């Protein structure tokens, strides 16, 4: 088995281009998807059974089908309705759609976890629902939103790899191109996996910092007694 990174020398720009597109697609899908998710969550909180049912159907459908199939549905469905979009745009929209269902659940859960009295006291003093959301609800749920949201964003970045199936020239697509040219799968996928890994680590670090800023730091209790630690912890300590 030979490992020859020099084989990739000519192809690094292509891979980096792909990586950059991955980052861009993820960023756009994050913004659009989160906005859509908040909208769906707000809709689901409206009075009556119909909004919750409709939102529930939306969320359950998007969560239970594989993303690769969702991409194809969007990709083939858009021309159906007469809209012609380039693959990258269609793919970004599909990713945003996919992720909006998860963000909607996260936002809805965070809002429901807040005691009702908070919203009620804001309304009782004369604030409009929008004012109550802005001044009382949103600042409080921010803390609860950050960890699951950053987790989902990481998942979304990884899911963007599937966009290669509709020829979006992101990192995975480029990896297949390079692999087809060099027939050096080990080098290619080692490089590509490392790039993804690096992006993931950056996202994880960013989310850690954001969590600390918002005050969502979770302190694992390590002051349990040693007997229980022996069974209930997988952390290996140097003796």
């Amino acid at each position, binding site marked *: 088995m030979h490992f020859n990174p020099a084989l990739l020398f000519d192809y690094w720009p292509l891979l980096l281009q792909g990586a950059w597109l991955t980052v861009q697609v993820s960023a756009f899908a994050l913004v659009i998807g989160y906005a859509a998710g908040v909208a769906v969550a707000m809709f689901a909180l409206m009075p009556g059974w119909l909004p919750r049912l409709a939102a529930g159907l939306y969320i359950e459908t998007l969560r239970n089908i594989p993303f690769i199939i969702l991409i194809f549905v969007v990709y083939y469905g858009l021309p159906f309705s007469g809209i012609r979009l380039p693959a990258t745009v269609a793919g970004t929209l599909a990713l945003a759609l996919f992720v909006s269902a998860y963000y909607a659940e996260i936002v809805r859960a965070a809002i429901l976890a807040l*005691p009702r*009295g*908070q919203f*009620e*006291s*804001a*309304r*009782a*003093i*004369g*604030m*409009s*629902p929008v*004012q109550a959301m802005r*001044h*009382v609800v949103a*600042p*409080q749920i921010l803390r609860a939103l950050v960890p699951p949201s950053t987790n989902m964003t990481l998942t979304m970045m990884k899911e963007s790899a599937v966009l290669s199936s509709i020829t979006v020239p992101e990192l995975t697509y480029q990896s297949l191109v390079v692999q087809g040219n060099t027939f050096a799968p080990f080098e290619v996928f080692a490089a590509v996996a490392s790039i993804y890994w690096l992006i993931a680590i950056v996202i994880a670090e960013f989310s850690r910092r954001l969590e600390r800023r918002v005050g969502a730091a979770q302190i694992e209790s390590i002051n349990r007694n040693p007997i229980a630690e022996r069974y209930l912890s997988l952390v290996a300590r140097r003796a």
Partner: protein
Amino acid sequence: MTAPPVLRVSALTKCFFGTAAVDDLYLDVHEGEIVALIGPSGCGKSTLLRCLTWLEQPDDGFIEVTGKPFGRELTNGGVVRRHSRREIDALRPKIGIVFQQFNLWPHMTALENVVCPQVVVLGRPRVEAVRRGEEQLARLGLAERMDRHPRALSGGQQQRVAIARALAMDPALMLFDEPTSALDPELVGEVLSVLRSLAEVGMTMLVVTHEIGFAANVADRIAFMDRGRILEEGPAHDIIAAPREPRLRNFLDLVLANRPHAIPGTRINKTE
């Protein structure tokens, strides 16, 4: 020629799942009065308060605050018109409410809790809102604790912040939902003195409480509520000393049996 009562409730009805929590209720509260609303649990006291701030929408009946209709009104053509959300929100600052759990906003300091609604709802300039907020909090004895967050305040202090928050909006009427229940028993005296100081400046108040002694000490009038209706009301001491309604008598007997000295100077009439 009398001024309209600060609060006039007529024929108020609110049903949940077929049962009337508030059933054709009539109540007047005049300016400067303190009315205590007592009754067994489940009688609808809290529902009534929630209707008065439109946190629950009554099914029938009318509410008037300083003569202005609130929430629903009877138009000239005899038709009942429901107010828009904006109309309701416009009158809400006039009805101050202090919740049982206080519901202070934990991400804001005490001062900010009092300042924010003034700025956001009433549109007061921030400088003035801060000045009035500081004034209110100081008057309630919280001058040194204005910059603390609610979690750094004791229960009694939190309640006073909640009171200041409502008072800063210049309400015509203050509603109190069980002001003694969330506090340690020895702090009841403090709540009493706070309410008395408010009464001294002429604030009109409606206090829902299950503590008869508290009601007798604080209120001018007492209204007894049971199963959604006000069965008896009148001057505080008369109600306690000589209740006429049999259910009220039972209620007083039950409550005072545990604490016969709760109301000094009253006899519990067990015969008849």
